[in-house]
């Protein structure tokens, strides 16, 4: 990646996803009603991620991977979670497609990221950053996980927008 900003976007997204994970879990548990349903929602996510991963792996023209759409897509899902209000009756039915979408996009993103030359470096960095961030968050009182999830969603949308802007100017690098 020739642009530093675009180069660091996958790291931001990966770190963000791990950091948001505990809050997402709290939210998912709240809407799942039972542990069985909670586990099934997770299974849905997992199957969808496998599907998304494989979609990228079997993609012929990897030059055009449209990762900005993936960032924006994940961002929209998180923002939607933040916007859901007073639909308790239907919440499980809404969560299910969101889990599928999120799983699919994350699987695709992971497959794409793993083929980038910065992947291994990002892996080490993301562990360290997440560690420090979680220590930081342990001193912060988050009143509503939903607000936090929505903010992360907006950040992802910004990443998508940024990637889209830069995409026109820069060519995507191949793995060496």
């Amino acid at each position: 990646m020739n642009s530093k900003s675009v180069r660091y976007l996958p790291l931001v997204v990966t770190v963000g996803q791990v950091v948001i994970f505990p809050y997402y879990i709290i939210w998912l548990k709240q809407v799942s009603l039972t542990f069985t349903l909670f586990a099934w929602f997770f299974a849905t996510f997992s199957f969808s991620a496998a599907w998304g991963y494989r979609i990228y792996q079997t993609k012929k023209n990897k030059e055009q991977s449209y990762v900005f759409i993936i960032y924006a897509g994940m961002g929209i899902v998180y923002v939607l979670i933040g916007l859901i209000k007073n639909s308790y009756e239907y919440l499980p039915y809404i969560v299910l497609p969101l889990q599928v979408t999120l799983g699919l996009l994350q699987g695709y993103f992971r497959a794409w990221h793993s083929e980038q030359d910065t992947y291994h470096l990002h892996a080490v960095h993301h562990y360290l950053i997440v560690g420090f961030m979680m220590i930081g968050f342990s001193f912060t009182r988050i009143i509503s996980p939903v607000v936090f999830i929505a903010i992360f969603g907006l950040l992802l949308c910004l990443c998508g927008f940024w990637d889209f802007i830069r995409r026109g100017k820069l060519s995507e690098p191949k793995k060496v």
Partner: protein
Amino acid sequence: MTVEKNIRFFSVAALYNKIKTMKIHNMTIKGVTMQRLMELLKKPWFLGSLVVVFVAVVLWNIPIEKRKYGLSQGSLVTDYTGLLPQRVERIVKAENRQDLQRIVKEANKDGQKISVAGLQHSQGGHTYYKDGVVLDMRTFNRILEIDEQQKTIRVEAGASWEDVQEAIQPHGLALKVTQSQSIFTIGGSLSVNAHGRDIRFGSMAETVKEMTLLTPSGEIKTITRDDPDDWMKYVFGGYGLFGVILDVTLELTENDIYTIHTEQLKTDQYETYFNELLTHRNTAMHYARVSVAPSTFLDEMVVVNYDYTEKQDHKTVLKKEQGVRLSKIALDVGRQGGALEDLFWGTQKLYIGSLDGKEITRNNVMRSESTFMEYTKPGRVEVLQEFFVPIHAYGDYINDLKQIIPSNDRSEDFKVHNITVRYAAKDEVTTLNYAKEDMLGLVVLIQHGLKEDEIANATTLIQNWTRLTLEHGGTYYLPYYRYQTKKQFRDSYPGWEEFVEEKLRKDPNSVFQNMFYEHYLK
């Protein structure tokens, strides 16, 4: 010998080789299968299909009944609607008669108040009282005796009608009168003197042959119909204010097989139709639905009759809840109001029409589905109300009702989702008596918001509806939320004074209390 040994050795060796070959063959098959599976897992379409199938399975298994209500609701107890949360001192699980007796005797001494709770489907705080003790009767649910010859069952009051049906079905027996669903406790149903689809056996109270009662003074008494103290008159339809029903002996009948007969009618035809049905037709059970859809509002009805076939059944299993998810989806569509409510009514007519000519046992008629009606939405509630009108007043009553309730409630806060009509035979047993003559009961499913102005609006509408009912010589049912005024209560139940006097005579220390008593009768 050497030749024999050689032959044996070669046979064993051949067998060993064969087994080895088979194992290799099996392993090869397993290997090929595994390889194929791994290949398949690499295909995006396969993974996509896996997701679709799994999502469908999860969708189908999202639980419908999500709400937690009643005695399990943390520090405040509620009943089905959750409209009257209240703090109670403690909840006592009923284990044995002596414990219950001790609690009641102690309450007489120390001024403690007691309420009695079953499955808590009542909606007006009948099962608890502020700072009181709640006797949770659900564990008091044994079947004590079934007399096949006499056709009776003796059962503890915390048992549900489902428990009773499961016990009597193998004997080819069925209940005479119960509600159309089997999710209530015996004690609860008798305390509200419930009624159902049966049109031949009178009121539920009339089917009780004997009862064991823990009186407000702490005595355990066996009560029969000729009891000089008239306990049955006050305990049945007494809303838990005259002691604890410990067990009852219920009269049973044969588990007959019926043919379902359905018809579509105009509302103004129903009065004549029902009178004819009551006097001439070979019908054992009956109910009807009235349209609340905008285009046919209170104009159309569908009736469902269960006609005798002279056949009886010992084998058909009790049906479980069926088609709950589809029914729930259909009801949710109807809940949207407007054209979608018209669509829901059309679907109901089609479904009910499809039942025509089918056979069903008496026990199965008495256990309709209920889970599909679950409704959970913050800030809103669904409640039941029931209004009784004399059969001869039905046509005029429905016409006048059109002036009170909007036909299209799509944009209204107060929504009527369903009205079913049931027969309530003249009741000569209970004091708080809702059927002073043969009545038709309109069970109404209502939804409204929980903001102050929304509750006030619902209260006004329901009070207007009650006023109209009273003008037509009718009454309203007391197990539901108390939207009505005290005057409307007194006009509906002229026996209230006698009820209160007898309450003070039989329970001088006012041990048995609940929110219903506090609101209407104190």
